[in-house]
Every structure is written in structure tokens, then in C-alpha cells.
């Protein structure tokens, strides 16, 4: 029996028992408890409305009033060739393939890596690495106050599980490809990822969202990163969903002393996209660098929501977000920096730059500082502009044709964020996609 959801919150509540029965043979009681708690939260919260301050610029009615169902299998649509088509060329990596939120081991390729490192589907890890999963899952991404996290927690079926023990360094990046297939009904997928990086350990994780058809579905993603002391991690969110799809994602990072996270979000697909990044710098000397690039066009809506929490002294955070908006697209940058009591000598910096390529594109940018402390350095700056005519003229006066000059200018703008990527093949692949974006944009003018 299909598990279906409509515009009533109860439909989400009613579907859960059937969901647990259908998709978990034997669900551990602790997990079942969490899921039941989560759906209770969701039924209380409901989907956010424009009256909710954190959702002021993003209208979720197209999601809350829509109907979805838990996706059927859809694996038959995907094979080795289609995987190759979507994957990042020449990225030497552990490859995990998820189709409509379900792990496909036959198409995945997990290689050997340093001793003790575990890379597998979360569903498998529920048995094999029970203690670790139970200890961490749902402990950071708080489902009590967030509708989408609660919905994900209740309805997640699978995702990636990564465990890097003390002082180990994952030699290859973990690449997670999520493919949505052309379902008859609109599907709801809830990928759930857990990445545990112990003291002095290191790992890179790439999340990549694509679809085989331009159809309507909802990807509701939650990823928890747990960083031990002096741990180093890099995260990539490559969002290339169907132009009619919804993608809501939350990256929740918990940092211990002297740990470093670098996160990159590239938003290209989707009708309505919300990208939440929420690091908590909970230990002295942490570093959190968050980069983002969003390129909505046509009627796309992309909302970047940052919440950077400084909970300990001597921590540095950087938010660096660039957006290029064309046609009737809308963008949102909402950057909140919270400096808790006791987090002295905090250095938090936020930059958001936007280029509007059409008169009908729109951006709302909203920095927000909450400081419960003294002796902190917080800066923020936002710019909104058109392409710099002076610079275009400079390039043209050197013999570079108009179109080329415009491309160079846009590229220079996107390079500011892409440059921070350490995985060269990922950067190259994104650069190529962005070039196509530019070409399309120019062709329509």
C-alpha cells in the first residue's frame, strides 16, 4: 500500500506506522521512539508559513498544499551508464548511490581505505555500528523546533554513514549520489546522513542531488557532522535537482576544540530550494568556513539560511556567499551569527554578494547578529549589483568580445567561492555546469 501525504498534517502523522512496518524489518526501539517523537513535533509545528520570521521570504505553500508519497523503487530506471553520466568525472572516491532515497549496493563502489574507517549505508549501520549510530543520530539536528528536520527524522529510510576513527585520514572522498527517478506520483525522499570524525581524523564528503526527469518531488535532507578535537572535514552540497522539484536541506555541524570544517553549497536546480547550514563551534579554537554559490534563473527560488553559533572562545567563522540571479528568479540570504555567553574573542565574518542579470530577478539579504558577550569581532557585508560596466568595457577595450567579457566577469564572481574547493574534479565539474548556465543565460538575451 502506498504511503500518501496530502495538504493535511494528519496525513503525515497517519502514515508513520505503515512506513516503519514497510521499510524497516526490525526497527530498533530507540529509533522507533525517536521517529514517533519526531512526528509528534511535526504535527505540532506543521509546515512553516510566511508569518514565521525565519521563512519570511520563502513561501512553502507549494509544498504544504501539495501531495506526495513515499517513492516506489525506481531502480530499474538507473544503470551503470546513467550513474556515469551524473557522476563527477575523474573523482577518485568511495561512491554510494541512492535512488529515491534507497541505497543501491550493486551500483555503489566502496573502496578500501585507512584502517577502521567505516563507509556504508546508514540502514546497514543501524545493525553493524549500532552503538555509534544510537549515540549520535538525531542528537544535533534538533527535530523539536524544526518542521523539516522532524519530518526527515520521522520518515528517513537511509543515507550515508561515515565513521573515521581517531587519527585516521580518509584517503578518498566519500561521494554520495542521490538520484530521483521519474515516478508516477510525486515522491517525498528523506535522505539522512551521519558523519562522525573523531579526534585528529580527517574526511571529505560530497553530497550530489540529481534527477532523471524534470518532475515534481520533495527532497528533504538532513546531514549531521560530528567533529572531534582537531578533526578536519570538508563538505560539498551539489544541488542539481529537477527544475520542478523542492529541495530542503539542513547541514548540522557539531565541532569540538580546534576542529575545522569547510563547507561548500552549490545550488543550481530546484523550484524552491532552502539550504540550511548550522555549525556549532563548541570548543576553543574552532574554524568554520562556509561557502555558497546560488544561481537561480527562470522562476527558481533559492533560500540560503545560515546559523553560525559560537559557543566557545577563540573561534573563527567565515560565511562567503555569492549569488547570480536571472529572469524572474528569487534569492534569499539569511545569515545569522549567534555568539553565546562566554565565547570571547570570537571572530565572525559574513559576506554576501549578488549580481542581478535581469530587472525581474530579486534578492532579499538579511544579516543578523545575536551577541551575548563582549570582546567579539563580527562583520557582515552585503552587496547587490548589476554587472560592472566599467570592467566589461576594460575587457572589451583589450579586444575581448562582449559575450566573452561578460562570461569572464561572471566567472570571476563565481571563482571567488569555487576557489575554496580542495577537490579539483568537483570544482572543474561545477565550473563547466556554471559555464553552461552562462551560455544559456546569454542565448536568451
Amino acid at each position, binding site marked *: 500500500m502506498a504511503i500518501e501525504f496530502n495538504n493535511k498534517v494528519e496525513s503525515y502523522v497517519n502514515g508513520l506506522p505503515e512506513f516503519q512496518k514497510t521499510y524497516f524489518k526490525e526497527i530498533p526501539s530507540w529509533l522507533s521512539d525517536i521517529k514517533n517523537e519526531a512526528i509528534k513535533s511535526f504535527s505540532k509545528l506543521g509546515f512553516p508559513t510566511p508569518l514565521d520570521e525565519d521563512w519570511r521570504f520563502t513561501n512553502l505553500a507549494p509544498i504544504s498544499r501539495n501531495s506526495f508519497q513515499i517513492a516506489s523503487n525506481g531502480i530499474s530506471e538507473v544503470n551503470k551508464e546513467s550513474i556515469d553520466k551524473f557522476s563527477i568525472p575523474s573523482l577518485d572516491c568511495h561512491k554510494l548511490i541512492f535512488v529515491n532515497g534507497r541505497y543501491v549496493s550493486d551500483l555503489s563502489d566502496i573502496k578500501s581505505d585507512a584502517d577502521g574507517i567505516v563507509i556504508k549505508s546508514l540502514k546497514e549501520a543501524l545493525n553493524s555500528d549500532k552503538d555509534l549510530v544510537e549515540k549520535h543520530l538525531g542528537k544535533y539536528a534538533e527535530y523539536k523546533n524544526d518542521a523539516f528536520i522532524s519530518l526527515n527524522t520521522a520518515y528517513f529510510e537511509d543515507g550515508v554513514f561515515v565513521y573515521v576513527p581517531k587519527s585516521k585520514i580518509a584517503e578518498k572522498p566519500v561521494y554520495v549520489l542521490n538520484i530521483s527517478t521519474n515516478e508516477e506520483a510525486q515522491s517525498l525522499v528523506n535522505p539522512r546522513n551521519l558523519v562522525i570524525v573523531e579526534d585528529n581524523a580527517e574526511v571529505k564528503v560530497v553530497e550530489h542531488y540529481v534527477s532523471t526527469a524534470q518532475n515534481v518531488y520533495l527532497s528533504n535532507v538532513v546531514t549531521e557532522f560530528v567533529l572531534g578535537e582537531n578533526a578536519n572535514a570538508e563538505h560539498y552540497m551539489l544541488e542539481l535537482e529537477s527544475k520542478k522539484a523542492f529541495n530542503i536541506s539542513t547541514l548540522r555541524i557539531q565541532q569540538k576544540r580546534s576542529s575545522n570544517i569547510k563547507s561548500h553549497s552549490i545550488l543550481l536546480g530546484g523550484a524552491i530550494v532552502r539550504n540550511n547550514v548550522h555549525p556549532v563551534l563548541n570548543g576553543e579554537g574552532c574554524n568554520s568556513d562556509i561557502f555558497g554559490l546560488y544561481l537561480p534563473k527562470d522562476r527558481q527560488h533559492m533560500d540560503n539560511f545560515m546559523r553560525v553559533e559560537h559557543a566557545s572562545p577563540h573561534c573563527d567563522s567565515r560565511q562567503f556567499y555569492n549569488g547570480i540571479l536571472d529572469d524572474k528568479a528569487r534569492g534569499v540570504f539569511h545569515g545569522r551569527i549567534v555568539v553565546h555567553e562566554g565565547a570571547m574573542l570570537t571572530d565572525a565574518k559574513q559576506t554576501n554578494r549578488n549580481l542581478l542579470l535581469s530587472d525581474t530577478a530579486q534578492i532579499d539579504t538579511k544579516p543578523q547578529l545575536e551577541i551575548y558577550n563582549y570582546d567579539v569581532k563580527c562583520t557582515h557585508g552585503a552587496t547587490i549589483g548589476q554587472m*560592472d560596466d*566599467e*570592467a566589461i*568595457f*576594460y*575587457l*572589451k*577595450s*583589450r*579586444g*575581448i*568580445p*562582449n559575450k*566573452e*567579457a561578460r562570461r*569572464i*566577469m561572471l*566567472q*570571476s*564572481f*563565481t*571563482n*571567488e567561492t569555487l*576557489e575554496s574547493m580542495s577537490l579539483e574534479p568537483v570544482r572543474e565539474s561545477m565550473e563547466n555546469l556554471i559555464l553552461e548556465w552562462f551560455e544559456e543565460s546569454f542565448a536568451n538575451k
Partner: protein
Amino acid sequence: MLEIRNLHVKVEDKEILKGLNLTVNKGEIHSIMGPNGSGKSTLSQVLAGKDAYEVTDGEVIFNGKDLLELDPEDRACEGIFLAFQYPVEIPGVANTYLLREALNAKRKYNDLKPLKHVEFGKLAREKMKDLEIDESFLKRSVNEGFSGGEKKRNEIFQMQILEPSLAILDETDSGLDIDALQVVAKGVNSMKSPDRSFLIITHYQRLLNYIVPDYVHVIYDGQIVKSGGKELAFELEEKGYGWIEEEKAAKV
């Protein structure tokens, strides 16, 4: 080579150039001097093709072609080069990238094959040595974080790579100390040739000690009001621009 006839130019409804005439022959160095607001920079920007300027009358013939009909990029490929008074900073675009793109655009325009990376590198390094530019320069973003002197040297460097037939230097000397000025002058002098002309726009006579012009013109209120040899520049330096104004007022 360059023939400007009765050029009238407006910016935002204000007439800046009011019937300017100038002829520059192959291999000649012309200097244009004048007080602030006389139209010096407007002339250079109009020749390079900036679209904020509206040409209301007159014509500009460059090597037999109607220059005003050409896009800025085509003018560059035809051999015009403008060294900007205020070179633009372009973060995220490496100097070497801009130069290679520019050079190859020009070569393509003239039906030449693009230069290979290695060949380009060799060419660039050669020129950089003469201009006392550090190797790291190629990788840096265009003019980003450059000092005033570095920016001007970069303009001359670009000119050397692109080898224009008409180089327009718009107040390239302004704001330079004497050492930087000499380096710039050396760069220009090394490019003198019977096939290349220069239009040197300046506020001060100082640069002309190092780059000797064949002709000096004084621009005032949108017209060339006086022309002469290099001695005119000394006269201006000594007396200032006041006497030009008086002379012009007397005529009216």
C-alpha cells in the same frame, strides 16, 4: 592613420567635445595637454568606444575605416589600445588569463592561429623583465590590490603584448613617482616604430622629458586651441593654462 574631424560629444546632455580636429600620421607621437575638465579623457574614452558618450557630430577615420561604427573590441583588434587613467580591478581573473584571451582574440580577428601557452609564457616573461615586473604578477588578479604604479605598469605591459598601431595613454603619468615614471617611459620608448603612433594625454609636462613628442596640442573647452612642437609643453609648464584661457577669451 587617425583623422578626427569636427568631433562633438555629449555626456548626459552636456557637450564636452565641441568640434575637435586632429590628425595623427604613422609613427608620430602627439601629446595632448589641457586643464581639468577640458575634454582630454573624454577624447580617449570616445576613441576606445565607451558607450556612455554620445557622438552628435563629426567623424573619426582610423586606417581608412569609420572608427565610430566599430565596437570597442573591434577597435582594439584593429590596433587601438587605451592605457586607462584608472585601470579597473577585476578580482578572480588572473592577469595571464586576460592577456592570453586578449591577444588571441586579436590574432583570431586577424586570421592568425592562437598562441600556445608556452609561446605566450615566453613572450610575457620577456616583456615583464623590461618593465621590472615580478613573475608572480601573472597569477595575480587583474589590478587587484595593485599600487598605483603597478597598475600603470600593467597597462604598459598589456600594450607591449598587444602591440597596437595606435596607443592612447590617458594620464598614465599621473600619480607616479619619478622611478615609476622612468620605467613607464622606457616601456613606451622601446615600442616606438615607424608603424606605430602614440597619443599621450597628460596634465603635466614632466612625462614629456622622457617621451619626446613630435607635436603638442592644447585642448581647452572641448577644442584644440593651440598646437606646436615640444617647446609648447615647456611654455605650458612655465605659464600654466591661464594664458590659454585669456587668449581664447580675447578671441571671442
